[in-house]
Each structure stands twice: as structure tokens, then as C-alpha cells.
């Protein structure tokens, strides 16, 4: 795998995946996948079920360890890229990579507020002693981060849910809270795994607006997996198509829509 040295030139892209191969036993989840996500864009990954989209996200966030290929990441344009491969998930998160999951993975017993405060975990310093005593600097830290969390709560319009246990919330709201928790990290790169799955039209519109707002107002580079083609084509600057673990197309929504390989993967060949 290519480990960029300290002298390598500043990265032009936020996320660069090349030659990525991931297999479980004999199953190739990802096979020589390349993609490059520029800073500040919304990048969609689409593909039929089982194409390897979630596996790719898991590899980026450190949950899976690919056998071959490289994943490099740079938080800001002009910053030196670092390799994400072999980095534990919590270390990837510390680099400013946040994500949401396909099957909502919130901390169900906790309130919305506590879930979001966990999003601030990497920015906080408290240890067992300071937290147990909860005095002086620790109290100030909790309060300062509470203020940061409240900004996210405002941003995503979930003020009324603050003190509710997330397990009791409706599905669409849970998805929104999961996005909020990821945003609480102050991420530079946001990975969203089917943020709109199972939502009705209205909820989808809300979520689409939030994703665009996050991208435009906060300048967060966003990689999202989505099945709703309307959403994908409207939101994204670039689209990559995976099929059976291979990247079969990549480009602007219009280019991808016209790509014969994509049409083949989705619709099969005309006789």
C-alpha cells in the first residue's frame, strides 16, 4: 500500500481511493475500486444491492481492513494527505471523518442531547478524575461543548427533542439525530450511508435540504450512498457507480446517467 511520505505534495483531493480490494473469504466485496472526492463537493456512490457501497464506507472509516489498495485523506485543500488504512475507527474519526449508518446506530437509551455530546467526544479532554469531580475546568468544558451541540440542534431543527431518549423517536427523526451526531464532530468529511432510506417525500426533502446546507454553509465534503436516483442526481456534484465490487463509472450525474455500463448494471441489456 502506498504510504505518502511527509514530503509528498499537498493533496488536491479530500479523499482518494485507489485500487482498493476487500474480500471476506472468497467473496470480493470490493475489487480494485478507484474514486477521488474533491474538497467541498457532494459525492454520491450508487449501485445495486450488494455492490459493495457500505463495505467501501466501512473501509474508509476503519471498520474493515482492505487487503490491497490505498485510501488517503486530507482535511483541508493544500494539506498533506494521510493514509486511512490500518487506522482504528476512532483515530479516523479524530481526523475529522464522521459518518452515519444504514441501520441507525444511535445510543438508544440516551437522550438526543447525550448522543450529540458524544459527537463532541473527540474535542473534549475530560478524564475519569476530572469527570468524576466535575468541577472547574471540567464543568466549563461540558458547558462549552453543550453550546456547540446546541448550534447543531438549531441547525437541524430538533430543539423540541433535546431531552427525549432517541429510542422513542420516529424513524425519520432518528435519521436526523444521527446526522446531527455526526455533525457535532465538526467533521471535514461526512460519510452518509443511505440517509434517506425509508423516509417519506417530506422527510426526504428535509434531509436533502440539510445535506445541502451542511455542504454549503459548513463546507463539509460529503460522500453519500443513496438509492433514490432523483435525490442523487439533484444533490451530487459527482457520482460513482459500483457493481459487484467494481467501479463501473464515475463522473457528473449527467455523464453517469448516459453511461452504457450503468444502464447495463441497472436495467440489463436491450435484446
Amino acid at each position, binding site marked *: 500500500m502506498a504510504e505518502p511520505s511527509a514530503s509528498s505534495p499537498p493533496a488536491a483531493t479530500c479523499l482518494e481511493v485507489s485500487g482498493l480490494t476487500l474480500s471476506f473469504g472468497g467473496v470480493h466485496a470490493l475489487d480494485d475500486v478507484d474514486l477521488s472526492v474533491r474538497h467541498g463537493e457532494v459525492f454520491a456512490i450508487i449501485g445495486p444491492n450488494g455492490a459493495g457501497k457500505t463495505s467501501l464506507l466501512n473501509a474508509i472509516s476503519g471498520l474493515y481492513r482492505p487487503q490491497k489498495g490505498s485510501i488517503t485523506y486530507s482535511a483541508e485543500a493544500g494539506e498533506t494527505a494521510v493514509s486511512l488504512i490500518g487506522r482504528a475507527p476512532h483515530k479516523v474519526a479524530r481526523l475529522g471523518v464522521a459518518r452515519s449508518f444504514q441501520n441507525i446506530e444511535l*445510543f438508544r437509551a440516551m437522550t438526543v442531547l*447525550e448522543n450529540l455530546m458524544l459527537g463532541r467526544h473527540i474535542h473534549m479532554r475530560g478524564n*475519569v478524575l476530572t469527570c*468524576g*469531580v466535575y468541577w472547574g475546568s471540567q464543568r466549563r468544558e461540558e458547558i462549552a461543548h453543550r453550546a456547540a451541540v446546541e448550534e447543531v440542534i438549531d441547525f437541524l431543527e430538533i430543539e423540541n427533542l433535546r431531552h427525549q431518549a432517541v429510542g422513542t423517536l420516529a424513524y425519520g427523526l432518528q435519521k436526523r439525530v444521527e446526522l446531527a451526531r455526526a455533525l457535532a464532530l465538526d467533521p471535514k468529511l461526512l460519510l452518509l450511508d443511505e440517509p434517506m432510506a425509508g423516509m417519506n417525500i417530506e422527510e426526504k426533502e428535509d434531509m436533502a435540504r440539510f445535506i445541502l446546507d451542511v455542504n454549503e454553509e459548513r463546507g463539509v465534503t460529503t460522500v453519500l450512498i443513496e438509492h433514490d436516483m432523483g435525490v442523487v442526481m439533484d444533490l451530487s456534484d459527482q457520482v460513482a457507480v459500483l457493481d459487484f465490487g467494481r467501479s463501473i463509472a464515475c463522473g457528473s450525474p449527467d455523464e453517469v446517467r448516459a453511461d452504457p455500463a450503468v444502464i447495463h448494471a441497472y436495467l440489463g441489456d436491450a435484446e
Partner: protein
Amino acid sequence: MESGIFFSDYRSDMALRRMPLQKVRTGLLLAGLVVFPFLATPYWLNLANQIAIATIGAIGLNILVGYTGQISLGQGAFMAVGAYGSGLLTVRLDVPFYLSIPAAALITAVAGLVVGLPSLRLKGLYLAVATLAAQQIVEFVVTHWDGLTGGTEALVVPSPELFGARMNTDGRFYWILVIVALAVALFAANLFRSRVGRAWVAIRDQDIAASAIGVNVFGYKLLAFATSSFLVGLSGALLAHYRSIVTWERFTIEVSISYLAMIIIGGLGTISGSFFGATLIVLLPAMINTLGRSLQDVAPWAATVLPYVQQGVFGLVIILFLVLEPEGLAKLWRNVKDYFRVWPFAY
């Protein structure tokens, strides 16, 4: 009754006791604890002291099992490390008890770290079996390392001295135990409204999501083992000085199980539940005993079946709680509070 209360700053919204009623309750509890020793007989003082020690141990176990979701059957072993640690430091090295107790708790924390190492790979029942191994190993070491622990002989610890007063009565020890127990409860409550406690609960609820938002899962599991063991060792060390006698029989697997029963009956993942559960498990056998003795004249056979009744009731209580109120006494208490929150209105 609690409507119309608004907080204008984060500090008061994040306080441990936010509502006026909560503050009143806490005040009443503290006042009760202060008045109690002046009213109580030595018998009740003794029970109160046992409850205080058990509460500290139960909070320790609850941090690991209830909050972090790592099952441990090693409670007895950790208490043994704390008890023998502090006892031996006092007896062999003449360390005063106010130094030997925290030192023993630290030693137990290190032991907890070691026992927690398998949690990197093991979860649930498999981890439970690993901690069971720790329990057996500690029991074996304690009973066989005659040179250090005295083996199966009891280790006699002189009652401690503080400000020139010998802490040899229940009444005097009460103050030490209550203050330590309150401090531990406050410490734990603080933990769970701030960074570290949240990370532990996150690991219990969704360990993958926890790692994806930047929680070092293995590190925090080890930290939970160490913190939990510290408190459990503390409770064991206090027990050693309170009882003046340390024997291995007090730290068997049965102790581990009865502590698990405490936190299950009391409520997993709650501080107040640790106290409620400890209270019930300490009082239950004492009450059955009293009942048996008072029945002695009426039914002389009662004394012979008493031990069996005790065991049976213990099991029955656990089963009843699991079936009827899996969230334990803490949840019952919450129901009572919720009822009176809007009383006398229906909603």
C-alpha cells in the same frame, strides 16, 4: 408541580439536581443520614454500615456491568484484593488505614485492568467466563499463598484509629462509611453526566458507532474495568477494617452473584439502583432471620428451615424482579416520582 420551570443557562440545565423537588429530596436524605445514628440501635447501625459498604461495591459493579455492558463474575475476587491488600498493608507494614485503603483500591484497579484485557476480543458470556477464571484464580491464591495471606486462616486487622479515636464501634464507623459512600455516589453520578461516562454507555449501546465517533472502545473498556475495580476494592478494603477480620469465605463466587443480584434488582445502569439493591440484599436475610426468631416460640421448627427459606426467598426475589420489573427498584422509584410529579392531576 414541575411545570413552568425554565432554565436560562446551561449550567443549571446540566445540574445533577435540577428540579426544586429533587433538591428537597436530597436535603431530606442527607438530614436522615445525619440523624440516623442517634436514633438507631447498634443492630440497625450494623445493617446500615453493611449497606454502605455494599452500595460502594454495587456502584463499582454497576459501572462495569450496568453502564458499560461488560459482564463480570469477579466481584468477589476484586473485593478480596481490596480487603487483603489493605489488611496486609496495615498488619505487615503498619500503614495507617486512611492510606492503606486507597492504596488497596489502586492495587485492585490494576488487577481490574489485567482482568479486563480479554475484553478486547471477548464479549458477553465469553467475557463472563474469563472473569470467572479471575475469580477462581484469586480464590486459589488467597487460600494457598499461606506466607502472604495466611491461607485459610483469618487475617486479623486492628480497628483503625482516626483523630485519636478508635473506630471500633458501629456508630463511629458509620460516619466514615456514609461519607465515603456519598462521595462515591456523587463521583459516579458526575461521571455519567460527562465525557467518560457517556463513552461507557455508548460502548454498551452500540460499540461500533462509539468507535466511529471517536471513542477508543478498548481503552474505555479497560478504563471501566479499572474504575469499577477501584471502587470494588475500596468497598473490600473498608469491609476489612470494619469487620477487623478478613477471611476468604467472604469473597467467594457467591459474593459475585449476590452483587450481580443487587444491581439487577436495584436497576442496571443507575446509581440509585445500586443503593436500593444493596439495601434489599442486605436487609432481606436479616429480616428473615428476625422473623424466624420471633416465630421460635410459636413454631420451633422455623429455625431449622430458616436457611432454606433464606435461599429460596433470595432466588424468588430475583426471579420476580426479572419478570415484573426488569429495570429494578430504581424504575419503581421513578414511577413513584412520576406519579407525584403531576399529583393530584392525572396528567
